[in-house]
């Protein structure tokens, strides 16, 4: 057992566990936020696991998740827009907390890997993850002025 | 020669892919011709391989022949029964392609090739399942066959019944497939192998059977029994077969259901028949019990139907029950009989569906009551329909009669009575339909609205209602019936079939199969019984068609997906309970 895996277990048990509970109960606005946060917690956990197992190739998983996770949330934001407009979610505290997990994990891993191609990949994953999550979160809360497009 | 075994799958798949790729560019007749040609080519290949399959051979896909008895590849079995089923599936696909030739419903624009392509994929899936010697590979082809069948069943999306039947079919069969996968997982955990023979050896090496073997057996059999529609896994079948387009019904009832039965035979024979598997008495108890129940319920429900396709679907259920009994008794003679019975039944049942399709396309209804006397003008179709009914009853010299009589002698005792009764009742129901619809005999039945599915309100499957019956649509059932007769009378054919079955099935015990006076007599008895029952039903509709007595049984067939899933769960438990007693001692 090394510290990386332990950290991953904590992130999974605490963060993802809470989102599973959040997505299963409560009003719709809470559920969509939980779904979004699930990506935000699972992705750092995958990065930690990759480091813990000493398998750099597992980083691909986190990369794909960082790309597709927010896309999934945007799908929900788009297709559930009517229901969400009536009762917009807003959980900025939690969103920033989740983003912070990513923001802590990625630099820590960068330090562990040292400057290399792997580190560039990690940074890309981190940027995609945090950017995507904040954006998806804002899209859910309907904070954007809407633009009509021809 | 042996290396061409995978082509049985590859050729139809390639044909289907090309049809879809080029379907946009070519007109419909070209697409249909290509479909027929590919299907016929595959059938020819299957027949050639079948003729060369003595002694049976194994083919390793990807050239991974075993090193020191172990391989990492997928094994395909080229033996008589497997190749026979592949040939049967291919020939029936050809028949249904010919039947749908030019007349079947208009394809969506730009997709002229999609219906023949789906039939070819179906053929590929069935051939793959028939020759699979690897349990997971069998799952893959099982799933391909199922996925294509769902799409084909729901093909007429404008029919409310079609989409509902297709969904029920899809949910129940998929659940069965996932059960099969759980079973594969358990077997892989125990033996670390996927080839059927390899798993069998692994189980034997482990010693006496235990709960794991029992659970794996139940889960694997659940999938195959769902496919072969044994009670209580059978509920999807009438719903799906009654709503599928006629050419598809011919395939579903004619060979897909029988492939499930074949799968039971194959998997038991290769995986579970050794000392580490399921003991023979337990297997026999489970299969004969379920088979008898299936035959009885299928026959009773068949009798009470007025939707003609649904009636035929229930007769398939009844006959599957008879097949399962024959396989369950584990006697070489019964296996031979069932092989012949399946061949004859495929021809007869497909022909009956084809005739019903003509009724649907001509009159826009498949309701026995509404069609009363309306089809008097269709003399030729009437003859074919009656011949089909007699074949179903087991009138010599139909192949069904030969197969049935051989099996009856093998099973003996009360089961023989069941064989006679089930085939007589289902045939009587079909004869009753013939008398009313084509002959206009008896009083016009009342069109009450009980708890039942009527056959009216169905739309023809052709572009317009047919005013003249095209020759292809009558020629196909005629050829199929001729084939069913040929199974019974072609000199030496029965011996060849028996030899091919025994070579793989019965560890070197060879039996001789031929007509016997007793068998002929039993065939005549069941035909006579069918005729008498049908006449009485036509003459005294009130006394014989009182559905109230069977209402509780009919209520079980509720068309509700949840009910059917619940029955599947109950079925697994029953199967487990039936198999359990002898396994406890070990």
């Amino acid at each position, binding site marked *: 057992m090394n510290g990386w895996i332990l950290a991953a277990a904590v992130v999974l048990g605490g963060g993802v566990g809470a989102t599973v509970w959040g997505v299963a109960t409560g009003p719709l606005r809470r559920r969509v936020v939980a779904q979004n946060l699930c990506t935000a917690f699972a992705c750092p956990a995958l990065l930690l696991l990759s480091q813990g197992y000493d398998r750099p190739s597992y980083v*691909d998983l986190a990369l*794909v998740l960082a*790309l597709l996770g*927010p*896309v999934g949330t*945007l*799908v929900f934001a788009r297709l559930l827009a009517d229901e969400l407009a009536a009762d917009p979610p807003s959980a900025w505290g939690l969103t920033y907390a989740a983003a912070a997990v990513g923001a802590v994990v990625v630099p820590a891993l960068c330090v562990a890997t040292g400057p290399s191609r792997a580190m560039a990949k990690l940074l890309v994953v981190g940027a*995609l993850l945090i950017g995507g999550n904040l954006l998806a979160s*804002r899209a859910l809360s309907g904070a954007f*002025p*809407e*633009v009509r*497009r021809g | 020669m042996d*290396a*061409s075994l995978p082509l049985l799958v590859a050729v139809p*798949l*390639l044909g*289907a*892919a090309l049809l*879809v*790729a080029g379907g*946009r560019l070519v007109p419909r007749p070209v697409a249909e011709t290509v479909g027929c040609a590919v299907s016929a080519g595959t059938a020819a290949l299957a027949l050639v391989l079948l003729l060369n399959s003595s002694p049976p051979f194994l083919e*390793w*896909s*990807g*050239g*991974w022949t075993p090193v020191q008895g*172990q391989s*990492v*590849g*997928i094994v395909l079995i080229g033996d008589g029964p497997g190749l026979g089923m592949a040939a049967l599936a291919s020939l029936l696909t050809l028949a249904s392609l010919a039947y749908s030739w030019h007349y079947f419903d208009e394809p*969506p624009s730009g*997709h002229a090739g*999609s219906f023949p392509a*789906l039939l070819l*994929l179906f053929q590929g*899936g069935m051939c*793959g399942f028939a020759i699979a010697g690897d349990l997971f*590979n069998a799952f*893959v082809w099982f*799933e*391909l066959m199922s*996925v*294509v069948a769902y*799409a084909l069943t729901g*093909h007429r*999306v404008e029919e409310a019944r079609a989409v509902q039947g297709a969904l029920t079919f899809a949910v129940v069969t998929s659940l069965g497939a996932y059960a099969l996968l759980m079973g594969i997982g*358990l077997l*892989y955990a*125990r033996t*670390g192998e996927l080839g059927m023979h390899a798993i069998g050896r692994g189980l034997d090496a482990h010693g006496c059977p235990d*709960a*794991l073997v029992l*659970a794996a057996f139940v889960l694997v059999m659940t999938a195959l029994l769902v496919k072969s529609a044994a009670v209580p896994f059978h509920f999807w079948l009438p719903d799906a077969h009654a709503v599928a387009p006629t050419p598809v019904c011919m395939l579903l009832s004619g060979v897909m259901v029988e492939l499930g039965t074949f799968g039971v035979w194959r998997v038991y024979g290769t995986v579970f028949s050794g000392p580490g598997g399921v003991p023979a008495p337990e297997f026999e108890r489970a299969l004969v019990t379920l088979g008898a129940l299936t035959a009885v319920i299928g026959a009773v429900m068949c009798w009470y139907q007025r939707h003609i396709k649904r009636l035929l679907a229930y007769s398939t259920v009844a006959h599957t029950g008879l097949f399962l009994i024959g396989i369950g008794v584990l006697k070489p003679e019964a296996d031979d009989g069932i092989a012949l019975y399946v061949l004859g039944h495929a021809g007869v049942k497909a022909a009956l569906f084809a005739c019903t399709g003509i009724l649907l396309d001509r009159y826009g209804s498949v309701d026995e009551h509404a069609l009363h006397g309306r089809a008097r003008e269709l003399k030729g179709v009437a003859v074919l329909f009656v011949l089909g009914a007699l074949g179903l009853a087991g009138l010599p010299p139909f192949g069904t009669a030969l197969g049935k009589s051989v099996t009856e002698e093998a099973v003996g005792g009360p089961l023989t009575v069941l064989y006679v009764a089930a085939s007589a009742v289902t045939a009587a129901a079909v004869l009753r339909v013939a008398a009313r619809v084509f002959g206009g005999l008896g009083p016009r039945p009342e069109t009450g609205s009980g708890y039942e599915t009527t056959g009216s309100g169905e739309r023809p499957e052709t572009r317009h209602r047919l005013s003249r019956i095209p020759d292809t649509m009558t020629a196909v059932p005629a050829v199929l019936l001729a084939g069913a007769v040929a199974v019974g009378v072609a000199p030496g054919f029965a011996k060849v079939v028996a030899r091919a079955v025994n070579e793989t099935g019965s560890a070197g015990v060879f039996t001789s199969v031929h007509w016997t006076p007793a068998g002929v007599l039993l065939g005549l008895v069941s035909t006579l019984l069918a005729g008498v029952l049908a006449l009485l039903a036509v003459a005294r509709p009130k006394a014989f068609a009182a559905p109230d007595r069977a209402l509780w049984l009919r209520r079980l067939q509720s068309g509700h997906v949840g*009910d059917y899933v*619940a029955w599947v*769960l*109950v079925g*697994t*438990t029953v199967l487990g309970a039936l198999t359990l007693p002898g396994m406890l001692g070990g």
Partner: protein
Amino acid sequence: MSRRARLWLVAVGGAGLAALFVAAALDLPAFGGDHHPYGDRAVHAALTRRTANVIASVNFDQRAFDTLGEMTILFAAVIGCVILLRRTHDEHRGRPAPEKVARPVRRYSLLVLPVALLTGLYVIAHGQLSPGGGFQGGVVAATSLHLLYLGADYRALERVRPVALYETGDAIATSAYVVTGLAGLIGGSAFLANTVLPYGTFNTLSSGGTVPLLNAAVGMEVACAVVVLLARFLDQTVEIEEGNGK
């Protein structure tokens, strides 16, 4: 059947199956055990064929026949969906109203689209080396195209997505897989035999003989198939309306 009766059936059947399964689980070899004869043989076989990702070797070489079935299932499902979700006689095509999209969402989508597409291609191309392969990469690539639907609108998506072309691509990729298999039969020893091409150098893009070819065929097939599937569903949701009169 009443809901109550059904619940009873589920309870009885479920309890039986659960008991059976628990009994079986107790007889299973302990989790994490060391007995994997087939697995060990597969690893050995993959290394002799110089394929770094053993799963790719199992999928596209040792058990390539299974993958043929798997991709055919997908192919069949696509044809099935095209047929099941066709526009019927009583329906007509409506003109979808332009969707409102927030500007940041649009920017994000258009920015991520090329990244996701590249990632998909990368995952396909490295299928025989690192985790991934035709299926995973194909889904990612096809999903990325639909960022256009999220970021711009349905009509923008339709412009880059001639469905007919993707249907043909799907069919061509499927035939390519079968034809590669036939090449193994004609030029080598057996159907789908990986003996036609040299095995190359371990852990490079061209290693593994026909594995990269089959992998690419599956990638193309899956990408096209997912695009067509989603197109059918989007078509139903966005465009097709039921007409009141004909």
